[in-house]
């Protein structure tokens, strides 16, 4: 089996509070893995470890090892921009930058390449390709100069996925990507994920168990900072091995 992310004995503290306790996890390549668990169980924290965005909040201590694409990301020679280029992230609330749709898609590329190295023709092609792969091209091809924040929420979230694509990431992390969307928008984003899953590895945090069941191949259940169970989604839901998992998936709490 080919793994995109392997975490070993991962411990993480926010100040004195230990948010992750001895997490060992292997996330397979090219498919959707979901993280479920009650609020505050550390699933978002774990997700944010994979591209090290949580270090920005300060006061974070990490121990252990995370290998992303075969490279330990806590090594001193790891460049954060390069890591975040390879591991894209989509947030809970759609957060397009307050610039045009066109510039949103090129933003990542522009910060990773020297000034004026992208020609207009290249840029146009990149924007078109990115928008086509998230099925926004027909809707937005006349609105490329519009402010991205003026789009519908569903379009904004798709745009947030689209702007990762020009960077050619290997892994896309999603932190409750559909919680701000209605049923139709959720369906659209899920379909998009299913289509893209062959090319990219998706790790998705979700509170919606139906969604985890629908989209993910493997599912990880976390509880109070510990990884309780990691199995194939269907068997985790139908035949949970652990008491806490069964309580959670049968909605006895959480």
């Amino acid at each position, binding site marked *: 089996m080919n793994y995109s992310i392997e975490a070993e004995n991962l411990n993480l503290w926010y100040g004195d509070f230990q948010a992750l306790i001895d997490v060992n996890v292997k996330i397979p390549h090219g498919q959707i893995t979901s993280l479920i668990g009650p609020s505050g169980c550390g699933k978002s924290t774990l997700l944010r470890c994979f591209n090290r*965005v949580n270090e920005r909040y*300060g006061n974070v201590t990490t121990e252990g090892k995370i290998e992303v694409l075969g490279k330990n990301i806590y090594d001193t020679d790891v460049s954060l921009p390069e890591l975040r280029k390879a591991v894209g*992230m989509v*947030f809970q609330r759609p*957060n397009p*930058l*307050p610039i045009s749709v066109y510039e949103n898609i090129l933003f990542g590329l522009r*910060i990773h390449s020297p000034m004026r190295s992208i020609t207009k023709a290249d840029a146009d092609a990149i924007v078109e390709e990115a928008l086509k792969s998230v099925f926004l091209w027909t809707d937005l091809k006349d609105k490329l100069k519009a402010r991205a924040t003026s789009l519908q929420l569903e379009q904004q979230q798709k745009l*947030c996925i689209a702007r990762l694509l020009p960077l050619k990431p290997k892994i896309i992390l999603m932190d409750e990507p559909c919680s701000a969307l209605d049923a139709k928008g959720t369906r659209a984003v899920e379909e998009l994920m299913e289509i893209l899953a062959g090319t990219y590895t998706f790790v998705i945090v979700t509170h919606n168990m139906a969604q985890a069941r629908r989209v993910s191949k493997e599912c990880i259940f976390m509880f109070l900072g510990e990884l309780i169970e990691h199995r194939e989604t269907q068997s985790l839901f139908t035949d949970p091995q652990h008491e806490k998992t069964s309580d959670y998936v049968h909605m006895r709490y959480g």
Partner: protein
Amino acid sequence: MNAMMTCALRKQKLVSQRSTFIILGIVGIPIWNVLQETSAADTEAASAAMPLNMLSPLLDDLYTLLSISFVAILFGIAWAFYLEEWLPQTHWVRRFIESVVAILGGIPSIFYGILATGVFFSDAGTLKTIGVVRGPQDTGDMSALEPLSFQQETPVFYILVLTFILMVMPLTIKTAQAALRSVATPIREAAYALGASHWQVLKKQVIPIALTRILATGCRAMSSALATVALIFGIYTWQYTNGPGEMSNRFVLFLGSALFLSIFSSVLIKLDASASADPTHPTR
């Protein structure tokens, strides 16, 4: 329907902009008049009662003050960036500066004015001789009145500069920090998650978004500084001269500029708010 709404919004924005310009005109014209009058007085070779070249020291003072407060504002903005963007919330330097700023910023600027006035008009020794070299109370001769000058490099000059800095910097730090904080976290997160460095996030997102507000901040701080100085001149006029003269011209000029800057900063904030307002999600 949507198009109609946007049209209405745009119209509303236009109207508000137009009224803003009218207000600016109303405030600007008297200031312009003062300048014109003083320069006219200047060329008319000045009567004995007004022996001084009026326009030039007037403007010199204004420029000196503006440049002092400009430097103080730049320092204030730099501090705001340092505190907000580099120091963690719990760092002792940040806590210290923020509490000092909270204390100083809470003092109404009139107290600074009174402080500076006290220094100016103190009867004690050297300090007095700097502001008013021969006050009317010494000679009883109004024509011996010399202008308050900020140009002289004397202790009072430095005390005044210090007063200015004390007054302008806390205000600038506080409001510029608020401006930086107003750049929503999701925007920063988005840029960081795409691999931007701290500098790139500042340069490409934070500064463009916060710039108008930071400018407004600077204008407001400068306005409060000018208003305070105007107050000093006002007190001077009221205490030592009878009727309008050079000092009251300064009073009008400085107060006018203060008012102008204050309104200008409100306009900037209003324009910023209407530019960042989101037509599709008005409640956000």
